[in-house]
């Protein structure tokens, strides 16, 4: 089984000298096709850092980040940007919607930038908005929506199209319990359909939807709960 996302011995240091912050230290992390992995840890433990590295939005100080076997560092800026439009869906901690575009336009943008025809991109966008339960808000602008509704637009943008890797940073932060659960159901369904998902969350009940939960402390992976599909394969091999 191949990992869609792999962080190999990744360290990320911000600043230098007295102000140096080791946000991640020698982290090994992976997510396979069909797998949803949750990342938990206290504020400042490196969760968002891990996710931005995985999404090619930031570069590691040491180590390698591979998506579908490709080292992101070898792609260059343009290659990474293309990867982000086509293979990687990203839900930011603070939504990151473009204020001048409607909900549907925000969701359609990555595909349009990638050369899809406007009508095709819009139809996919409407469907994704429908899936997150706000189809009727397609033509609203971000400042005409509640925080929870904007968050759902951000999620629709991350899952639209054939994303192989979905990275979500606190995607349920501004949502009530039921809506939060719906979003988890949606992420889970995408992973069951073959995507790899990484979910950063403070909520244990949301992390519990994942196959594995990885605990970060001070930039280090300290523990893991749940089963690793690769390991359970090894076990069943050994049992034979």
């Amino acid at each position, binding site marked *: 089984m191949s990992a869609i996302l792999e962080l190999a011995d990744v360290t990320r240091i911000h600043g230098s000298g007295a102000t140096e912050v080791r946000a991640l230290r020698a982290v090994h992390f992976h997510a396979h096709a069909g797998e949803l992995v949750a990342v938990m840890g*206290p504020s400042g433990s490196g969760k968002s850092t891990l996710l931005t590295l995985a999404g090619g939005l930031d570069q590691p100080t040491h180590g390698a980040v591979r998506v579908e076997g490709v080292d992101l560092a070898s792609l260059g800026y343009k290659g990474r940007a293309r990867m982000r439009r086509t293979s990687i869906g990203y839900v930011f901690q603070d939504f990151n919607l473009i204020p001048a575009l409607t909900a549907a336009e925000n969701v359609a943008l990555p595909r349009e930038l990638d050369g899809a025809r406007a009508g095709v991109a819009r139809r996919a966008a409407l469907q994704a908005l429908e899936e997150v339960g706000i189809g009727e808000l397609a033509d609203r602008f971000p400042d005409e929506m509640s925080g929870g509704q904007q968050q759902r637009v951000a999620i629709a943008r991350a899952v639209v199209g054939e994303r192989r890797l979905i990275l979500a940073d606190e995607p349920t932060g501004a949502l009530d319990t039921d809506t939060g659960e719906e979003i988890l159901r949606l992420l889970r369904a995408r992973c069951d359909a073959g995507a790899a998902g990484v979910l950063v969350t403070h909520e244990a009940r949301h992390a519990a939807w994942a196959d594995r939960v990885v605990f970060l402390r001070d930039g280090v992976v300290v523990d893991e709960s749940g089963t690793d599909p690769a390991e359970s394969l090894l076990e069943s091999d050994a049992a034979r």
Partner: protein
Amino acid sequence: MSVRQALLALLEQGPMYGYQLRAEFERRTGSTWPLNVGQVYTTLARLERDGLVEGTGTDDEGHVIYRVTEAGEDEVAAWFTTPVSRSHPPRDELAIKLALAVTVPGVDVGAVIQGQRTATMAALQDYTRLKRTGRAALPGAATDPADLAWSLVLDSLVFAAEAEIRWLDHCEARLRRVAATRDDVRRPGEAPAAENATDKAARR
């Protein structure tokens, strides 16, 4: 556990024998708290002694059928209208374990917390999987009251596990804060090993 009241409440639905009572109890609680048949029959014997149920003879296969008496009905009504007592919190092994871990020298409290958090998270993952894929998730669950009951029991387990993890996070954060203030008190160059650096600094 209130097996006594639960069995009485089930008998309000109609007369039943021991095995049936056990099955009905487990249908509603998803065998979260398994009852053995012996326990059911001893409880029924005590209820009969106290005049809360009475035997109504046997069925064709020889099972003794019980039904609730008027006094039993009153007891059930009182059970439903009285809140579960919170004045004596049930003994909580984890809270006791942590209370001792922070006071007994040489225990790695951080490891105790992390080990428990991983175990509780694994249980929470199991409950969530059951909710997602089990009996409670079937389309019929909305209409069968026993399935609804089981799904609410499952929710209760989810909330309890979640609360436990939040509490563990809280304990860890507080212990880190305490450790950090101890470090602040220490002067640069001072030997770091002092267990009670705060006391030493205070004495100086």
